[in-house]
């Protein structure tokens, strides 16, 4: 649902707009787009269903907020798998370089030892 919501340029534009200035009313959001109020409302509905936009009342206004959590979940589900070995490699390289600098351990042995 998140991917479908992000597939339309107008909806990405709405998210950009909220990222720039979070907590806007429908009127404020419509003002910045060449589209009817009803059109914007429909796009906001899709974003709300995907939980990318959440609303809060403030007095008589209904404000729209960007909810970044579903995108974080996607990151944690798929990207973390790739980021972790990278982070491990980088810290391994750092350790190797630091040890080399101190002239403590020959390169080959160091690599074996860090396993």
């Amino acid at each position, binding site marked *: 649902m998140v991917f479908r919501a992000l597939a339309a340029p107008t909806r990405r534009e709405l998210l950009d707009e909220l990222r720039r200035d979070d907590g806007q009313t429908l009127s404020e959001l419509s003002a910045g787009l060449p589209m009817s109020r009803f059109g914007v409302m429909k796009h906001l509905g899709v974003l709300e269903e995907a*939980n990318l936009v959440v*609303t809060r009342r403030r007095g008589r206004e209904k404000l729209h907020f960007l909810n970044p*959590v579903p995108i974080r979940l996607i990151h944690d589900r798929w990207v973390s798998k790739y980021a972790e070995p990278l982070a491990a490699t980088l810290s391994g390289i750092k350790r190797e370089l630091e040890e080399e600098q101190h002239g403590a351990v020959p390169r080959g042995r160091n690599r074996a030892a860090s396993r």
Partner: protein
Amino acid sequence: MEPYPEAGIALHPDDTAAVFEIYIKTTPERLWEAITDREMRARYSFGVGTESDWSEGSTYRSSVPGVIDIAEGENVEVDPPRRLVQSFTALWSDEVRSAGTSRVTWEIEPVGDDSCRLIVTHSELSKGANGEIYGGWPQILSGLKTLLETGEDLTTPGSLRYSGVASSGG
């Protein structure tokens, strides 16, 4: 899933807020425990535990003792397992410290038979507030979901940056 448009706190006039929402397969009681138990909290909050007696009007402190202080404040409203309102003063750098006190509202709503919606509203932020102050919530909530649904820690880089720091001696 149909959103529940009328749920959640109403904001004060001129209030600036950031809102974070997540669905978690768990009970309100388990979720409340995960928020208020020091050890559980640390497992999804960068390794940082939160200490309090959780009575209304009591204070809390989020820190790794001797390593870093993250936040402190008052438990303004405590209504387990539904609602927790806290004042929030960030402590981890001079920059965030200077932003002063904001407010964090945790709301738990049961959804369907076996799930909850958790809404964290970080409000009373100054206009153009430093994004660092509320920027950690997505990662925290993602880790909370992982912990409650799988019993595992989320190990995305950075998620456990302070865990094991304090206890490295033992």
